Every structure is written in structure tokens, then in C-alpha cells.
């Protein structure tokens, strides 16, 4: 029996077909756990394998302690659909718990039930989900709620609080919808309490959550990366967003289409991603904060415009929420394989800023910073999200709103500058004071052609060199405003240094801590700023690590290649492209091998 709050650290997966309420059940579970004062990290996966067509999985990690990664394997699998859940069994821990429909709508052929396919170690509880839902509401729709009721009974969760979470979720719906969900939940709860002999050790009885409810309901946001990016953008005075629907970035556009007009901004759904970034650059040229969001294929289309943003020195922010690639790739799986495209993609010597949030909270910071840097440095800023960061839900503290100086970053010319105004004046910082249209006396011509200080086309070797140097100088100076790299673990010389980026960073830092408990001396390094990259710091870090490990979700280690060139020594790599996020367990395992 688990009695101390420290012990609560479990992963619950709900697996079903699209339309079976899988995702909403996961959402309610997350909200409930958060309201109970636990840390949560949850995400929905829509695996693309043929067998699992229509399959979706709501994955939730619940912990009394801070969470850095989603957890590799599930402790509990709730199977709303046997067919789909069978393919999800591989993600269930040995000795894990399976809750399945013991009276499904149709009988199974031999070996086609999920319980038949489960490992013998699995503790399986059959609950007549369909039957109880029918009983509660007259139809099978409430199976997801029945399953949550069973879960609540099994783990001794707070039934009434859970009921309230369900009511909250369906609060705006008709009373009959609320009732049938609540009734299904209670039916599952009662039946399980009555009929199931508990054979597992998970229990929330007597567990004191880390925070009291009063503390956290006020201050916690339950939010995913996409939502947080949208929120941050609004807080950072975004006035224009152009986008084209593409998984997994579409949600950002959908949220902003609702919110931007309320904030005096405009949302434009364009005919393609080329048009989206074009409009963003147009708006940026017009002097307002503008952004677009996309994924691999759309980012590829935007490439030519990214060069224009850098060359014509027009602010633009692109969110690239990475998915499996190349080409159309795997739209619903997470990957970190756009590193090269974001940092190096395109033609010419084209320095651009690339930020990769490492967790949900930093999606906010990255977005605020991106809009600020784009405006101040008059350049392209790419925010690298990924499917996992976009969609995984955390309960986080409400972020601090950006400081006023973050909202008004354009360096405008003064009267002296305007006399014989040189839009692309060569300066030490590389930043040339910028006018926006409508400013008398500040008129200029922006172009993607190489140009002189006035913006007029100029192809001379000296001119090209001076302007290129200016753009690189400007880019390098961005580092002065970059957030410091996150360094975890031992401050001394260590056996293994784990250098990570993006959504894998949480798992990497967590792995360093876990490995320390197992006697492996390690330290972790991650930087939200990928371009320009904090080379000095990474060299200093590598200097005190006997071995370096770089885990990332791509085939051969794009970031590892990048870091290898900086630290000038070989590194160990941990790469996989299975579509699931990096887990600290993966990294610890690799560290043990090293």
C-alpha cells in the first residue's frame, strides 16, 4: 500500500478509438489530478500504424514531485477498445494494471481480446464498461466515464471531487449530457467497489498532495504548448497571425482566430504556407508584431521567405512544430528532426535566431522572447516546438506577463538618423534604426537583393561583405539577451555530460538526477537558444565531462553533429524515431551502458 505522497508517480494511459471519448477522459483525469494538487504531464497520441487506424491514446503522468518527462511506460492502461489497446500493451509496464471492458458489444475471437494479449504479469480488471454505460445513460457513450469511475474506486480517489471535475468539463453542455456522464462515472465507481478485488498496490488513500487545493486552483494553468504559445503571443502584443492548417500547429491558429480580434489583432488563414509567411513579413514590415505557425512541410515551403526576412531585415516569427519527416512524413508523431532545417535551412549565409522551448512553461518564455528578438533585431526567429510539446498538457504556474521593455523593442531612428536616412546603416551592433511605413522622411526600399545602406540594390564585393558581416554581427549579439543554459547535476567533473535540446531536455535532466541516485556521476546541459548557440558555455561544460551523451528524437543526431563541431570531440548519441517522446528511462539506460 502506498501511503506517502512521495510514492505517487504513475502513468495512466487511456486507449480507444477516435470518438470513444478517449481524449476527453484523459483531459478530465488530468484536470482532476491537478485539482488534487498533483503535478501532471499528459499528451494525446494518434499513432499512425495501419492496425491502429483511428486509435488514440491519452497518456497522463501524475506525480507528487516535479515532472520533467512524460514517463516511458504506463502503470495503468484503460482499454476502451480491445483492438487498439492490444497494440498499446507494449507501452504497459511489466506487472502493470489493465482495465478493460469485460462485456464488450461484440464477442472476441480467440486471442483478440486485450486481456488475452496482456502479459501474465499484468494485473487485469474486467469492468463491464459498455453494459454499465448503457445502464447509466441508455447508450454506450459513457464508457469512458465508467472507466474513470472504475479507476477512482480502484485507486481510492476522491469520488466527489472527481464528479466535480466531470461537471466542470461538461459545464456548458446541456444538463442531460452532464447527468449521463456523471451517472456513468458513478455506475463504474459503484460496480467496481462492489465487484473488484484489488490486487495491485496503487492507492491514493491517505496521500497528501504537495499543494493544498486553495493554493493551486487560483494559480495553476492546465495548458498545452500550443495554447501557451498563443497565450504568450497575445501577452506579447501579437497583432497579426497568418497560418495554413497543418498538424500539429493548427491549434495555435484556431485559438488565435478567437482571441486575436479581441486584442485588436487580425488572423489570416492563407492559401498556403508561402502566403502565410509572406503576410507575416508584410505585417512585420508594416511595424506590428506578426507570427505564423506550421510544421515540416509548411516550414519547407516558407524557406525562401525566411531568407527575405533575414536579408531585408524584416521581423518575422515562425513556429515550427516538428513532426515525423521528411516530406509529409508522420503528421501525428513527435520528432526532433527539423533542427538542421531550422538552424541551417535555406540558401546563402543566412543567420537566423532559433529558439527551442524545453518544456511547456518555456513555450511561453520562448514566444515572448521570439517576438521581442524579431522586432529588435529585425530578423527571422524560428521557434522549434514538436508534436509532443504542442500537445502535451501540464499544470503550470501562471506565467509572469512580459515586462514593458519586452513589448516595444523596435529601435527607431532619431532626427539625426532621419537626415539622409540609411535604413541599413552599418552599425557596431549590427542593428540599424528602422522606420515603419507612415513615418515621414523615413521612406526606404526593402529588398531581398543585396543592398547598400539605403536599401538600394548593390552587388559590389565590399558591399556584400559589409552587409553580410553586419547581419552576422547582429545575430551574434542576440546571445547577450539569451536565457542562460540550464545546467543540472554535479557542478564538478563528471563521467557523463548529457547535452540536450527541445522537448528531450526535461527527460535528460531528469535522467541525470535518476542516474545520480544509481551512482552514475552526471551533469546535464540544455539551451533554449539554438541559434546563436552558447558555444562558450557548452565548451566549458563539455570540458568537465569525461563522456558526452546527446539524446534526441531523430535518426542520426542532427544536434549531436552540431555540438560535435563546437566541442571538437566525439559524442555518444541516443536516437530514436518511434514517435514517442524521449523518456528519462531511455537516457538512464544509455548512461548505464556507457
Amino acid at each position, binding site marked *: 500500500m502506498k501511503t506517502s505522497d512521495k510514492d505517487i508517480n504513475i502513468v495512466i494511459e487511456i486507449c480507444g478509438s477516435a470518438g470513444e471519448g478517449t481524449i476527453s477522459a484523459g483531459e478530465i483525469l488530468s484536470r482532476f489530478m491537478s485539482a488534487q494538487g498533483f503535478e501532471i504531464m499528459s499528451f494525446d497520441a494518434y499513432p499512425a500504424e495501419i492496425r491502429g487506424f483511428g486509435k488514440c491514446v491519452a497518456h497522463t503522468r501524475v506525480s507528487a514531485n516535479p515532472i520533467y518527462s512524460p514517463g516511458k511506460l504506463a502503470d495503468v492502461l484503460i482499454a476502451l477498445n480491445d483492438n487498439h489497446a492490444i497494440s498499446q500493451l507494449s507501452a504497459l509496464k511489466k506487472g502493470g494494471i*489493465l482495465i478493460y471492458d469485460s462485456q*464488450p458489444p461484440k464477442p*472476441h*475471437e*480467440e486471442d483478440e*481480446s486485450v*486481456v488475452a494479449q496482456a502479459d501474465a504479469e*499484468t494485473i487485469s*480488471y474486467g469492468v463491464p464498461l459498455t453494459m454499465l454505460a448503457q445502464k447509466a445513460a441508455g447508450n454506450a457513450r459513457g464508457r469512458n466515464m465508467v472507466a474513470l469511475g472504475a479507476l477512482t474506486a480502484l485507486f481510492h480517489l476522491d469520488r466527489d471531487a472527481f464528479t466535480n471535475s466531470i461537471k466542470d468539463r461538461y459545464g456548458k453542455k446541456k444538463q442531460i449530457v452532464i447527468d449521463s456522464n456523471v451517472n456513468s462515472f458513478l455506475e463504474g465507481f459503484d460496480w467496481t467497489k462492489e465487484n473488484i478485488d484489488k490486487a495491485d498496490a496503487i492507492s491514493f488513500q491517505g496521500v497528501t498532495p504537495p499543494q493544498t487545493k486553495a493554493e493551486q486552483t487560483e494559480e495553476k494553468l492546465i495548458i498545452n504548448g500550443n495554447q501557451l504559445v498563443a497565450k504568450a503571443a497575445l501577452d506579447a502584443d501579437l497583432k497579426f497571425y497568418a497560418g495554413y492548417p497543418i498538424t500539429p500547429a493548427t491549434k495555435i491558429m484556431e485559438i488565435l482566430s478567437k482571441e486575436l480580434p479581441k486584442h485588436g489583432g487580425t488572423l489570416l488563414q492563407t492559401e498556403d504556407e508561402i502566403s502565410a509567411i509572406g503576410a507575416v513579413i508584410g505585417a512585420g514590415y508594416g511595424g506590428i508584431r506578426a507570427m505564423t505557425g506550421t510544421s515540416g512541410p509548411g516550414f519547407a515551403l516558407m524557406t525562401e521567405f525566411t531568407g527575405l526576412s533575414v536579408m531585408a531585415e524584416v521581423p518575422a516569427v515562425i513556429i515550427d512544430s516538428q513532426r515525423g519527416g521528411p516530406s509529409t512524413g508522420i503528421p501525428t508523431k513527435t520528432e526532433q528532426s527539423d533542427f538542421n532545417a531550422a538552424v541551417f535551412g535555406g540558401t546563402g549565409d543566412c543567420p537566423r535566431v532559433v529558439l527551442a522551448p524545453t518544456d511547456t512553461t518555456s513555450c511561453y518564455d520562448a514566444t515572448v522572447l521570439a517576438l521581442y528578438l524579431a522586432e529588435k533585431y529585425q530578423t527571422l526567429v524560428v521557434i522549434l516546438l514538436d508534436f509532443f510539446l504542442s500537445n502535451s498538457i501540464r499544470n503550470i504556474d501562471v506565467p509572469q506577463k512580459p515586462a514593458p521593455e519586452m513589448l516595444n523593442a523596435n529601435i527607431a531612428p532619431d532626427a539625426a538618423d532621419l537626415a539622409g536616412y540609411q535604413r541599413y546603416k552599418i552599425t557596431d551592433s549590427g542593428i540599424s534604426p528602422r522606420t515603419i511605413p507612415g513615418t515621414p522622411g523615413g521612406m526606404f526600399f526593402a529588398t531581398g537583393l543585396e543592398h547598400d545602406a539605403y536599401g538600394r540594390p548593390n552587388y559590389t564585393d565590399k558591399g556584400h561583405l559589409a552587409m553580410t558581416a553586419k547581419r552576422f554581427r547582429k545575430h551574434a549579439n542576440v546571445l547577450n539577451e539569451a536565457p542562460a543554459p540550464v545546467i543540472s547535476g554535479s557542478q564538478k567533473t563528471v563521467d557523463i555530460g548529457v547535452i540536450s535540446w527541445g522537448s528531450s531536455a526535461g527527460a535528460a535532466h531528469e535522467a541525470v538526477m535518476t542516474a545520480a541516485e544509481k551512482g552514475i556521476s552526471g551533469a546535464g546541459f540544455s539551451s533554449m537558444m539554438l541559434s546563436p548557440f552558447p558555444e562558450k558555455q557548452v565548451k566549458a561544460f563539455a570540458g568537465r565531462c569525461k563522456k558526452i551523451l546527446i539524446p534526441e528524437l531523430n535518426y542520426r543526431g542532427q544536434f549531436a553533429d552540431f555540438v560535435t563541431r563546437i566541442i571538437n570531440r566525439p559524442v555518444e548519441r541516443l536516437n530514436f524515431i518511434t514517435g514517442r517522446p524521449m523518456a528519462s528511462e531511455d537516457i538512464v539506460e544509455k548512461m548505464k551502458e556507457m
Partner: protein
Amino acid sequence: MPTHDHYVIIGNGPAGNAAAFTLRENDPDAAITIISHENICFYAKPKLVKYLAGKVDEDALAVKTMDEYRRRHIRLRLGQTVAHIDPDSRSLHLAHMETVHYTDLIIASGAKARLLPSMKPYADCLTFVTEFNDTTGLRKKIADSSRFFIFGGDLVGFKFLKMLTDMGKQVTLLLYPRAFWPHRLTKEMQDAIVKNLAPTNADVLADDDLDTIVPEDRGGYWVTTKQGVRTQADLVFSFNGLIPDVDFARGCGLDIDHGILVDETMRTSLDRIFACGSCAQIYNPDINTYTTSIGWPNAQVQGKVAGLNLLGEHHKVRPAGRKYFDLEGVKIKTAWWEDLEKDEDA
């Protein structure tokens, strides 16, 4: 040579496991599946009482590891319940609506706690200890409780009583003469037992019967006997022996009395279906009747015999003669096959 045989064993106790391992030793190719409604690997039931008393932990219950099954390619379907048997299509219908096909079937589903017909109205108030599933949560409850009422008194019941009094718990025993089913304790036997239990400091009631059990709002129960004794208890246990767990097999054509009727070769009335262990009622030529058996060694022998006979051999379980054994100092005649004493410390 590959074979398409699929031997299915219902039950994961000593009989079922003996059958499965015997089958595997003698037939390396067939598919073998053990189905058990319990969510736990093969464990030592006799140790459950110690487990409940907190003297051993769950690991100590284990008899075999999962790996032993994996190595032998014996498939375990745990936590799965057989709802009924269809001998015509040679298939089993599981409670979760999956069909499992077999070529040969061995039923070794064991026994379950006997609920006395008179106790049916109070079933919800009673706690039974027959399998691991019953014990979840109970261990902590026992540790947290101080007053116990035990109704009945069979082998396990007395063992449990001693365990509780050793823990310093307050125990009331209502001795029920039919607890040691199918035997009836005589007045003399009961008196002897009461005398022999005296050192335990348990309150022992005899010549009485249960009248009512009334749950209290704040937990616990008021137990009243026919003689008017009122006792408060946190938990009320019933130890009134076991009955074969064969409900799922009824109505499929098998001959069933208390248990599934089998001959000395463990064959049931239906082709390719065997039964063994405490779910079986075995023909005893010495007394010319069918009797049930309990105990680990009996089950093992029967499981092995069933396994070998399924493969075409012709073994018989041999009665080891009439036996006596000790129920709290009282000698009771039995007609079982093996010596139960071996069981004591299993």
C-alpha cells in the same frame, strides 16, 4: 513435428500446475494454456493466513515465477474467468466474451469458501479467506482492527484464530458443528476442541448458532447468537469449509454433484475433459462413492495423473487407505488419498 493440440487448464493451483508441467514434460510441442480468474501467479494458498497476519509478504507466497512458464511455453491467462464450457465445439467462453478453443481440457478450478445457506442474508457482512484476491486490503484492515468474530471453524479457521490471538487480537469463535464439512462434529468433539483452544484466550461459543449480524454506521458489526450473546466485532469471518468451484461447468453436460464427477483416471463424463484437485469428486471403489479431496499433495498427484492420462496413459489415483487427522486434538476419519500432515507447513 508440429502439432495443433491446445491443452487448456482451468485453474492455477497445485492440480492445474502439476497437470500443465506434466503435459509439457511429455509433449514439447502442444500449446498449453492455464486460465485463472486470479491475478496472481501460482502461489501457496496455505500461507495466506500468515500473509494476512503480516508474517510473510507477497513474494513469499510465490511458488513459481513467470519465467518458469515462459521457458516452458506455458501460457498464463490470469485474471480471466471461464463463464462456460461448450464441449460440442470444444471451446470455452470467457467472461469477457472471448472464445478459447481447446483440444483437451483439464478442469482444476479448486474450491471456494462455503457460504452456509442460513448465512446468505448476511453475506455482505462476512469476510472469507480462500484466495489471494480476498486478501487485498484485508491485511491492513486486520492490522488496524482489534475485535474479531469467527464463525465456523475449519482447518484454516483455527489456524487463523491462533494467528489473531498471537497478534494480541480479541477473538470470539462461534463453533459451528458443520464447519468441517462434510463431517459433523459431535458434542464430544466440540467439547474437546473448546478445551484445546482454551490457551488461546479466545472466547469460544459452542452449542449455539448465529442469529443476526448488524453493521454499524461507523464500521464494525454487532453479532447476536441464538442464545442471546451480543458481541461487537470489527470484522466477522466465516470459516465453514470449501466447496468445489464448478458453477461455470454446470449445464454443459458434465456430470456434477458437489464437484465434477471423475473416475480414478480423472476422466469426466465427457470426452477429452478431465478434472482434478478440489473441484473434482473422485470415485472411490473402496467405499463405492464419489468423494472430494482437499490438500496440496492430493491436488498435485491428481493433476499429474490427469496430465498423463490426457496424453493417452492410464494411471489411477490410489486411495492411501482410511486416514485420521487432527482437528484441534480431535481425530477425524477421512477417506482421502494422501496424508494431509505434509500440508501443514507448505
